[in-house]
């Protein structure tokens, strides 16, 4: 099973990197972009034999306690069998 974890800055937090990318995209001609936010992406491969419920608990904890700083960031994740 693989967990796909996305960490992004909270909406209330300014993202100067996203802003710079947005500016660059507009400059090279991409139209119609309202906003760009940059985040982080993690792929976590879990040991075989772990159930989906166990994986949910484990990955949620990892995302909350380690991968995210709750002051500025939020997370979401999905689990897929492979």
């Amino acid at each position, binding site marked *: 099973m693989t967990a796909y974890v996305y960490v992004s800055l909270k909406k*209330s*937090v*300014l993202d*100067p*990197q996203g802003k*710079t990318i947005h500016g660059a995209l507009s400059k090279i001609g991409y139209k119609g972009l309202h906003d760009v936010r940059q985040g982080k992406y993690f792929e976590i491969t879990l040991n075989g034999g772990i159930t989906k419920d166990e994986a949910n608990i484990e990955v949620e904890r990892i995302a909350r306690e*380690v*991968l995210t*700083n709750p*002051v*500025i960031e939020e997370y979401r994740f999905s689990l897929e069998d492979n």
Partner: protein
Amino acid sequence: MKFGVIIFPGSNCDHDAFWTIHHVAKQPVTFLWHDSHDLQNCDAIVVPGGFSFGDYLRTGAIAKFSPVMESVREFAAGGGLVLGICNGFQILCESGLLPGALMRNVGLKYVCKQVQVKVENNQTPFTNACRTGEVLTIPIGHMEGNYFCDEATLEELKRDNRIVFRYTSANGEITDESNPNGSLENIAGICNAGRNVLGMMPHPERAAEPELGGVDGVKIFESLVGAMALK
């Protein structure tokens, strides 16, 4: 009165802090390896600057899980003096010993230069050798020094006079031009509610001898020595 300077893999201001404490402030000092719980009966702990664990994931995010930080949390809870400088400030925020977070500089550049910081509160163990309102010249060198916290936390910091340093102009004016990294309200350093834990982005150990271009940073270490003498 013994100081302990923590070394994480990737710390790089540990020797500068050690030098300043030993040769300038003339105090006993020892290094503390991050992988041990033993604080060796130190009376004050310095969490130095650098790039602990390569600053991978987030600055300070991995260092907070080092065994020594468990001891530092207990030490701080008992009123022990903890000074976090630059990466040390980031580690203290990640560890929950100080509120808020240090984000990427708003200009997206590493900034390394002398800055002016105003002492907003001299009633702390880290600033008692300064005057309130005194402007110190101390260098910064960081990519993530943009202090951020939510509004409620900011109100609390202001109400309790826990904003200890602010970036200012040479004559102490709080201006956007003097804010090198986009920090909320020009915040350069804050302390905890107990006033025994302080985090600051400027490097006082890099402003400790005339050869380094200034000696204002010594006041932080002198303050600590004075505070420990009173304990």
